[in-house]
């Protein structure tokens, strides 16, 4: 096996850099990798390639941002927004399933996944029925879903920079987390277990807007951008 690490090379190809600029860099890395295979052996050469891929990634990302500009940013935001809304819908479905299971197991003590997770991770209340690895696994799955979905959606559209929707989805997730950290986590029985004040109306309004307007805006972006990406490329 003398090829460089495929994952690292694929990562460099997702950053949206100008193909010529990217190929100069990847070509150099491959050339040096081939030399290091002889000098240092396969293991060290692959380790060197992965480290160098991480070092050059910011340069490729910066070139990608410059190249994609406003249009690319819009496309990434649209894909990410659709993915976040998908995650919210998955959230609702999962909460329903867990609540139903909880009620069957422990009786009717209304809660939400976020409440359960918060109670487990921040140790606010020992009384929540959903705790431990189940809650943590759900939190991780729901957090990872939007970036994954947006990356896959972008890749299936033929996007040459699927990392941008992934980053946008991560940013939305982080913003959502910070808002909830600052204002408390909503739940059917009220956030009596939350340390902050009750969730203000504007946060609820924003979340409702995200869930209702988000799919429409996201779908519109995807449809408009899909036409551009599916059009045959004209030779330079």
């Amino acid at each position, binding site marked *: 096996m003398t090829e460089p690490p495929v994952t690292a090379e694929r990562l460099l190809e997702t950053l949206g850099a100008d193909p*010529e*600029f990217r*190929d*100069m*860099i*990847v*070509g*150099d*890395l*491959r*050339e*040096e990798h*081939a030399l290091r295979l002889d000098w240092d052996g396969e293991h060290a050469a692959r380790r060197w390639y992965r480290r*160098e891929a991480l*070092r*050059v*990634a*910011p*340069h*490729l990302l*910066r*070139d990608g941002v410059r190249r994609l500009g406003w249009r690319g940013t819009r496309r990434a935001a649209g894909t990410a927004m659709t993915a976040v809304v998908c995650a919210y819908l998955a959230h609702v479905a999962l909460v329903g399933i867990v609540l139903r299971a909880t009620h069957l197991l422990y009786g009717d003590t209304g809660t939400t996944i976020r409440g359960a997770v918060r109670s487990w991770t921040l140790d606010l209340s020992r009384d929540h029925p959903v705790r431990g690895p189940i809650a943590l696994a759900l939190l991780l799955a729901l957090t990872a879903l939007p970036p994954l979905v947006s990356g896959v959606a972008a890749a299936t559209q033929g996007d040459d920079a699927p990392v941008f929707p992934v980053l946008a989805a991560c940013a939305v997730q982080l913003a959502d987390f910070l808002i909830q950290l600052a204002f408390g986590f909503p739940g059917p029985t009220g956030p009596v277990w939350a340390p902050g004040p009750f969730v203000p109306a504007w946060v609820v309004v924003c979340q409702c807007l995200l869930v209702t307007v988000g799919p429409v805006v996201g779908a519109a972006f995807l449809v408009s951008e899909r036409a551009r990406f599916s059009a045959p490329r004209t030779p330079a």
Partner: protein
Amino acid sequence: MIDPSFGPLELAVLLAVARLGDGAYGLAIRRDLAARTGRDHSVGAIYTTLARLEAKQLVVSRATDPLPVRGGRTRREFRLTGAGAHALDAARRHAASVWGGVAPTTPDPESA
């Protein structure tokens, strides 16, 4: 009007291009800088700097044929332009002027 001002890495890369002649490309420049300065610059930093120098018209580049060792990718070789050579001369004069009148304060380790 070409702007001849450049930073330390731009100057180092420009000097490497001048030293390497026609064989100047990212990897060769990186090795040259590592051998002379002991600093291991990333390939990305080298090519970003080269792109800046090309935008300032201090170097020009051309692509070679695709090479198997690079996974079928071309190699982009850089060469100093007339403006680049003038900029290096100006930088040398400027450095000499700045250092003028200052004697070495420690013995040269290589002559010891």
